[in-house]
């Protein structure tokens, strides 16, 4: 602030930027640790992206093959099915999970009994701590077509299904996708509420009190106070998750089986089977190429949605 003696008109603009930067000196310093970690663990490995244009099995030096890996990928018979499946399963899952998490957060926020609220909160977080393997094995049992299957037994007892007509949910082309969403909602919704509940707890109680004084109904308060306060977080969470949309793997991998493979094959599982059955060492060049395509899709989705968000709300997420 105290510097800038030579006021030369020609260099006024850069000078003011410099001056401005001087003002923010402290902030730049604070950013150094973040930058250091980002460079060390993200930017240095990024040099590996060049592997996408090589054939590299980890032993001999990478051999430049141009765009071969990409050509092979796009020409692979199952690639586009897997690609579209990934987009569909992943985006629907994301929307469903977020919607459910928001609804549950709003409802939880309305609970007045603190003990009940705390207990419920703890319970809905629990599924996050179970691995996918365990989760799916328990659900396979609950959805089993045998007499052990809870759901089928209930349906038969309720007279909806007849004995012997039990549904093999996990092995049925018609049911698999819905079951996939349900299990995902079961496992992730609770944990997803954390960030929304934290946002809600930041809303000043006075706003609600004022609304009550004005005779606002519960719905009004949700509509005009709570939801607007949440909207920023919802958009941020949605867009951030779009970046990782193509990474869907473990949940699908442990749930898929031979009967539903056309519905359930996603990009990552497809590449996994391709590598596994190739009879050769994994080609890291190829997997890197797949990674780039996944990233590009994530990138496009994030940029597009960020742009939409800017149009509607006047700002993006970052």
């Amino acid at each position, binding site marked *: 602030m105290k510097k800038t003696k030579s006021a030369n008109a020609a260099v006024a603009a850069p000078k003011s930027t410099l001056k401005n930067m001087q003002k923010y000196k402290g902030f730049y310093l604070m950013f150094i640790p973040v930058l250091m970690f980002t460079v060390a663990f993200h930017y240095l490995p990024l040099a590996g992206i060049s592997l996408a244009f*090589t054939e590299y099995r980890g032993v001999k030096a990478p051999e430049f093959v141009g765009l071969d890996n990409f050509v092979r990928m796009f020409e692979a*018979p199952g690639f586009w099915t897997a690609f579209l499946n990934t987009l569909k399963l992943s985006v629907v899952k994301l929307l469903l999970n977020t919607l459910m998490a928001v609804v549950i957060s709003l409802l939880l926020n309305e609970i007045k009994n603190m003990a009940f609220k705390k207990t419920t909160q703890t319970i809905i977080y629990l599924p996050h701590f179970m691995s996918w393997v365990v989760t799916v094995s328990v659900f396979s049992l609950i959805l089993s077509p045998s007499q052990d299957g809870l759901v089928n037994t209930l349906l038969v007892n309720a007279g909806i299904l007849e004995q012997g007509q039990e549904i093999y949910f*996990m*092995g049925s*082309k018609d049911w698999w996708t819905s079951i996939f969403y349900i299990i995902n909602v079961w496992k992730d919704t609770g944990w997803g509420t954390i960030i929304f509940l934290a946002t809600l707890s930041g809303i000043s109680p006075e706003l609600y009190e004022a609304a009550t004084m004005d005779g606002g109904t519960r719905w009004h308060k949700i509509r005009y106070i709570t939801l607007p306060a949440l909207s920023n977080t919802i958009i941020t969470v949605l867009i951030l998750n779009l970046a990782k949309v193509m990474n869907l793997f473990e949940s699908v991998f442990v749930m898929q*089986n031979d*009967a539903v493979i056309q519905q359930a094959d996603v990009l990552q599982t*497809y590449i996994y089977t391709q590598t596994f059955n*190739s009879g050769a060492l994994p080609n890291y060049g190829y997997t890197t190429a797949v990674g780039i395509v996944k990233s590009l899709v994530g990138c496009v989705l994030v940029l597009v949605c960020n742009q939409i968000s800017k149009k509607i709300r006047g700002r993006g997420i970052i």
Partner: protein
Amino acid sequence: MKKKLICTMLAGVMAASVLAGCGGDGKTAAGTVKDEDGITIPEKITVMVDGTLVTKSNGQQEFIDRWEELTGIELEIIQPDHSAYYDVLGQTIASGDWPDVMLLSPTYYTGYVEEEALWDMTEAWENSELKASGRINNEELIDNLYIDGHLYGFATARGNGCVTYVKKKWLDNCGLDVPTNYEEYIEMLDAFTNGDPDGNGVNGDTYGVSAAGLIGVEEPYVNYLPEFYQDAYSSFYQKEDGTWADGFTEDSMKEALQRLKDAYEAGYIDKESLTNATSDCRTKFYEDKFGVFTYWAGTWATNLKTNLANNGLDSELVAIPPIEELGAYLERRPAVWAITTQCENPEGVFKYFIENMLDGGDMQTLWTYGVEGTHWSTAAETVCENTYEEGEFHMLESLESPGTQYTKNNIDPMLSIGDYIDADPGANQIAEEARESQEIFNENSTLAPSVKSTDEMSQFNGDLTTLKNSIIADIVTQGMSVEEGYQRFEDEGGAEWSQKIVDSLNEE
């Protein structure tokens, strides 16, 4: 130009570390001591191995100490988590700092041979004392590891496989004998499914057989429901005349699928076989839901038995010889020990590390049973409620999971291909049921077909396998007929890919 650029970029991050590794870190450096055969004795050997060797929490340090005591050579063991073994192996190789020896699955073995990463041990093996000693009881296994006339890896034991277990009590309750052909097998499944084999007074609350998947995901694919597949094989194999074929396109597979379909629709096969994990199958077996289970021979026989007994059930299992139509169970190809080309003294490592494992004496006992006093003992004592007399060889209580008793170290005594010079010290401690099932398997098995990789194979086999498995699922569980299934195979390009791969295999 572009190539140059790429290479330069890579060099920055990667090649440096590769080069750093090439220098070696002082292993087997200066002091060259030669033994009586003129082979330099290594000073230190670095080994990469998966979870099949005693882990750190199970007394690996004692193992290393004993090994060093027996050889006078320093031993370093790198043992990544079992489930991530091949990821870590791949990274370690890529980092350039290679171990001297590594344990490899059949696929990685052929892969690394192709990449010229393994030392050719043909001569070392051919001229070894071990080969000359005549104690190798299964030289065919080693012969099968030759690639284009050269040997790059050595197996100390057979790869094992699955044998069919039948609950003895269920047979008795139904008044049946052990099935010897497919007709009797189906008769048995029918009795187990529609009768009352468990004797609970309810007919039809059980079924015949269960499996984790109608077809396996890894070689030898057809090993979980062998009685139905019989001589059919779902993937590529080399015929006796040396030409390659895709078993899926042959009539034997069509017939096998019809058998599976009929049995599935009759309810003989677990309705959930598509989605079962192996642990689901075991759990159902322990709960007396079904009576016939094809599972690993050997130690697993004891495990199945113990768990059945824990559930208060009759635990007697009969491991049956393969039915007539099947002829032989399929044996998995073994994992092999290979020496890397970065190893500075491969002859020494072969002699002192690999060959030594089957020395027929102390070293073999170390690899088979572990360390005396840590993993086994001959003292008079009681271990896990079993009492042993002085001088009686027995395994000790596990350090990691108290209450359980060790079974073996790296080499399974029942699968070892090297005989002891004298008697196997631990021969008598092996549980009877384990021995029985293993003997039935060993006498009635053939080695699973080997695979080769070609460009076409790596391009198409992923999609091809997915399509095949999907067709199998559709035919067996979703009511599609065999003809329709094979029509789908034609329509969706399977036949074409299959032909391309067969051609490429035959070309080489």
